[in-house]
């Protein structure tokens, strides 16, 4: 039986993947950030080379996985079990032998974002064959060679954006975001790499993602207002209560002191309750 998510002591394999820690920039500084990224093109190339090798490593892994096609827990046992399954099925009922691999692409132009943690977004994207061709038709045969893909991350709650340079070997990315508990979206754009291509406004918009509200990561004492609302869930009546009496505040303080106490008591255990650092992308970029 698999251990459950709540249980502790995770054993996780190391699989590396690129992540990006953005510098928080306002919309006004977006252009400046773009220029910087162009100036640092040599560094970018070096980084890209390392990312390419990681991507290749990943595809190699995928090939290995492709060979596996059964359920028994050890790799050595896999082949035997598969053979036996086929034999059994011949004896009993004609269950067809099935093999599937996951499609590389669904031929769609898409960006989707998910919140891994309150401060890390996961984005994946794709561009359809037709949209690729449209871009080539509109700009040039070498459109994809002469442009670089970027993800533009917009915090809609606090009204700022920043860009993350990605590459054409990746189709997903982990993005560190400065603020939790905010609404974000991410756009996929391409920018000229050199002077061989002329693009109006210096970027081409490809598509944008779903809106995503990221989780909150702290007690919202700063949001305390004078009164709070209670609802009787049986009859639906709502009543307002003032919480700014001394005794009320003392009680709230005592309750939340308990949680501070827990943090101290369970300090070591809370540390152990963390996922293996190797699998937690938030640790990868440090």
């Amino acid at each position, binding site marked *: *039986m*698999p251990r*459950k*998510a*709540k*249980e*502790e002591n*995770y054993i*996780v*394999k190391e699989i590396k*993947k690129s992540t990006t820690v953005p510098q928080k920039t306002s919309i006004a500084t977006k252009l400046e950030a773009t220029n910087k990224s162009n100036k640092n093109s040599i560094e970018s190339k070096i980084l890209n080379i390392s990312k390419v090798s990681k991507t290749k490593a990943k595809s190699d892994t995928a090939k290995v*996985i492709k060979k*596996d*096609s*059964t*359920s*028994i*827990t050890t790799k*050595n*046992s896999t082949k*035997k*079990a598969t053979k*036996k399954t086929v034999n*059994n*099925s011949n004896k009993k009922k004609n*269950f*067809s032998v*099935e093999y*599937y*691999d*996951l499609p590389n692409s669904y031929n769609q132009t898409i960006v*989707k974002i*998910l*919140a*891994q*943690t309150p401060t890390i977004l*996961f984005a994946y994207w*794709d561009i359809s064959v037709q949209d690729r061709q449209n871009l080539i038709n509109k700009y040039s045969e070498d459109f994809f060679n002469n442009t670089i893909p970027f993800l533009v991350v917009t915090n809609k709650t606090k009204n700022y954006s920043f860009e993350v340079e990605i590459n054409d070997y990746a189709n997903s990315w982990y993005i560190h975001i400065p603020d939790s508990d905010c609404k974000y979206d991410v756009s996929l754009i391409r920018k000229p790499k050199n002077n061989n291509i002329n693009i109006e406004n210096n970027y081409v918009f490809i598509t944008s993602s779903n809106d995503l509200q990221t989780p*909150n990561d702290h007690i919202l*004492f700063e949001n*305390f207002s004078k009164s*709070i*609302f209670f*609802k009787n*869930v049986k*009859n639906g009546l709502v009543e307002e209560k003032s*919480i700014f009496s001394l005794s009320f505040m003392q009680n*709230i303080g*005592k*309750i939340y002191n308990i*949680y501070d106490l*827990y943090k101290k008591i*369970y300090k070591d*255990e809370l540390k*152990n*309750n*963390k*996922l293996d650092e190797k*699998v*937690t992308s938030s640790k990868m970029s440090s």
Partner: protein
Amino acid sequence: MSKQKGYVSFILHAHLPFIHHPESEDYLEEQWLYEAISETYLPLLTNFKKLEEEKVDFRITMSMTPPLLNMLDNKLLQKRYIKYLKKHIELAEKEIIRTKNNLKENELAKYYLNRYSNDLYLFKNIYNCNLINGFKYFQDIGVLEIITCGATHGYFPILYVNEKTIRAQIAIGVQTYEKYFNKKPNGIWLPECGYIPEADKYLKEFGIKYIITESHGILYANPTPIYGTFAPIVSPNGIIAFGRDIESSRQVWSSINGYPGDFNYREFYRDIGYDAPYDYIKPYIASNGARVHTGLKYYRITGKNCEKDYYNLQWAKDSIEKQAGHFFDSRVSQINFLSSLTTNPPIIVCPYDAELYGHWWYEGPDWLYILFKKIYYDNCNFKLITPSEYIEKYPLMQISTPCRSSWGANGYSEVWLNNTNDYAHKHLHKIGDRMVELANKFSNEQDKIKRRILNQCAREVLLAQSSDWLFIITNGTMVDYAKKRIKDHVGRFNKLYDAIIQDKIDNEFVNFLENIEEKDCIFPEIDYMIYK
């Protein structure tokens, strides 16, 4: 008995992913169900029965997930469980002979023979091979509240980019519950306690009153709940949330000093599947010859990094008594302190995986039994209660939106979304989108074969969405199986999708459909129109 100042609510989450392989008996993963029946579900039912016979008034809540209910109701799996028990009885009998010169091992071999024989008797003769009715009985007499769960334990915070897939998870969870328990569920166990406010409207639509969240689901709520996790809150959409208590949780869950680590308790990792001579044990391990757990274990935890001593049933009982007393005393003093700070009597919510009790912590069901008796008989300032009863007694609660959260490591989505399993999400999202497309395109399809295809599409989407596969990949054990399950369900869905979209349905395809209908036979009454 002193006046009740507060309440304790035990919630056990009973769940296993849907594993059903009519094509072969070699899938070890199918044994998870049999292990859980013998080690968790039957012991819980037995202890509930003992409490009832001893007229001990107790309360407990259990979520029984739709995949688990479907498996418990599956005739093939019931048959195979009986076979599993018979094989274990045969092994225990052989063990009595093999261990005749070792008194301690021999006593334990006899204990296992008795235990597995009793399981067989209970399963066949008392429960008529159907444990669902066993649990339903305790719900009907008012000591057990059963709640539902997402259809296949799909993790809402990741699936919700297509809200219709969340709606379907909730709807089918509720429908499955109604099928087996003849009433609507009051509560739902959100898969992995994965809360998102966007699900509230669908929970409301299907009549769900309450959910359980991880502690910070309440503590980080907006506005801040003034009673912390010691009172439920209600979201602006009317969904009531109970938060997990940290202190009682750590006493059981903690890997450092949690109760299951007591040195007198049975050592999970020493099993005769690994310890007995290979040729002797071979007929009782994996068919490919790999050594695996058999369930017959002779050692106690003993200590850290030391030679293991034999398991002693009496010593284990002593530890159960001691720890039940400790838990009891801790709650008494916790409630004494809290009751002066809250308007309504505080509630201590104690949610655990059901399979922790018995499978991982062998003595867990007996610990619950002793604890419940102690709460009933001892002079005590608290009572056991179900969330529904608490809502009924104390309906006035603070309005606050719970925080997006889960009960996985670090409290958010890292377990189900990380470098090991993130490749899967685009496929899970895509087949969800395609399912909605099919439901709209083939609205109320009248052709019988097409309708079967569409219903099977819905089953494949749901099975692919199970959070278990992502978790297993992260956890690093049985990874091949989990990856294969994602590939199989996505692959089968896409094959069905292509056939119906292109209208290429020939005899060979119908054979394929029949094949996968038999393999992936969860939710026989499913109606794909739920995705419209």
